[in-house]
């Protein structure tokens, strides 16, 4: 049957997840989609830490504790992000991140 997955397999999985997340961040036009992709990269990092906890430092639970905190922090981050998205939407009636370019004052360069 399948061989037991080793740390390499797991790390590959995590790296793939990370890459997919990054790809999403840079290609999704909807801010919520970007946020989802960010969560995905965060999750890949979480997975990474858990893998290391399991394979490298299996005699304590530091990694797992760290992961719990990360999940909490990520949740906080998501809350703030969504709040900002809402207020952004109220002004622009869109969540397209490529439309968030009103600040770039190119023509404003001084002589």
């Amino acid at each position, binding site marked *: 049957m399948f061989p037991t997955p080793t740390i390499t397999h797991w790390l590959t999985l995590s790296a793939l997840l990370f890459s997919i997340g990054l790809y999403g961040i840079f290609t999704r036009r909807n801010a919520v989609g970007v946020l989802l992709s960010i969560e995905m990269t965060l999750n890949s*990092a979480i997975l990474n830490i858990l893998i290391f906890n399991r394979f490298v430092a299996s005699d304590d639970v530091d990694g797992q504790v760290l992961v719990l905190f990360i999940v909490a922090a990520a949740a906080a981050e998501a809350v703030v992000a969504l709040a900002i998205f809402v207020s952004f939407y109220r002004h622009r009636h869109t969540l397209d991140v490529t439309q968030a370019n009103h600040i*770039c004052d190119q023509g404003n360069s001084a002589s």
Partner: protein
Amino acid sequence: MYIQPEIIVVVTAFAVLGMEMFLPPRQRVLQTPVCLLGLSIALAAVVYLMIQGDGNFLGGQFLFDGVAGWFKVSFLLAGLLTVLLSADLLNGRFKIVPGQNRVLIHRGEFYTVVLFNLVGSMFLISATNLINLYVCLELATIPLFALVAWRRDDPLSCEAGLKYIILGATSSAVVLFGLGLLYGLSGSVDLFTMGDNLSFGPATKLAIAMVVVGVGFKLTLVPFHMWAADVYRGAPLPVAAYLSVASKAAGLAFMFQLFYRVLGNVLLDVSMALAVLAAVTMTLGNLVAVVQANVKRFMAFSAISQAGYLIMGFLDPSGAPSMVYYMLVYVVTNMVVFGVLVFYLNETGREEIEDYRGLSRTNPWIALVMMLGLFSLAGIPPLSGFVGKFFLFSVASKAGFHWLVAVAAVNSTISLYYYLRIVRQMYIEPGLGDDPPIRASASIVTALAVSTVLMVVLGIVPFFYETIYEQTHNWIAVAGIRGGMAE
């Protein structure tokens, strides 16, 4: 117990929040003095602890030493000055200009968020394990997203918040991945143990590259700096001021933790990369600052270039005191400049460089303070900016990076060029008309006075640098021994 300052700040934060909830609106004006009082007491506590000496709490999970003390002083100073600078806006004392939305609402929440952010930064430098470090980093970051987007009615503010949080979250994910790798490579979450276990392997390189993103994001190192200009431009000005100093100081604290404690072993191996990063950062920051017309964007790029100078201190293990000192200097100096910017924006609603014309005629003292601040940023003696830069350059020179010293020194000249552009507007160009002198509010005057005096004193009185130097020995020793500099 060495955690009193943090506790005081947290208590203050809750007190302010409580006042917001329970006091009638008119009495909520007291939030500002309460906040200032709390921060001042915390500052006093830090100083007291520094006099007491190093110590730890919670079985070594919280470490208080000289460097931590000085960082906390920087944070608290930044917090104090930000509170002072934002007071006018929060209290509605500013000139209303049609088409501009500059009101800041929810004073209590604003202060609370700032204070929590400060606490995050303060814990950051005292953390000794990865869990603490990460949580504090998040605490020192997430409230800033909210602060930037604080002005909900202002599309620019929201847009800045959007950008900031997307990039901030991304960087935090990347840095977390890197931290995970470091954890995996060392098998520990204790920073000192991690440092002992790490060697300069390929995976370490990947991890370093990834944590550099986090550090670079907070410190605005090129090319992780792109958010800065847009965010500074969109954020309320006091928040931009806070971002430029407190967030940067937190970034430096994070970098201290990582590069001295975790990567102390490999510090010398990465020095070339850091040197290039420093050179690119200061050069790009300066070059782009040259063409800016808006003071906020201008200060953003100025801040970017300052970060370039700042990390020169990592090139040699002996650089720790120079960096800590420069951080302190940078906080007060930047606050001088931002203080004037806030003052001018509040009172006139103008924020283009050209708008500063003739300021020396209407408000000679403010113009003088501004000029001194800009000169200090440019590194003109005898102001503290000069001394700080000199020490940083000396570190690079000691490490043999003479080319970097040259690049940095030439960059100082370029920076002088654009700082002088403002001086020129203030002093040389004729005024906009027969403007009457602009009255500055008490809070602005206090902020400017405090920061200006500190800016001058820091450079002339050797006490500060000498004390920092004495107190940073243990950090140098850690990095020095690990970096193989002992011989």
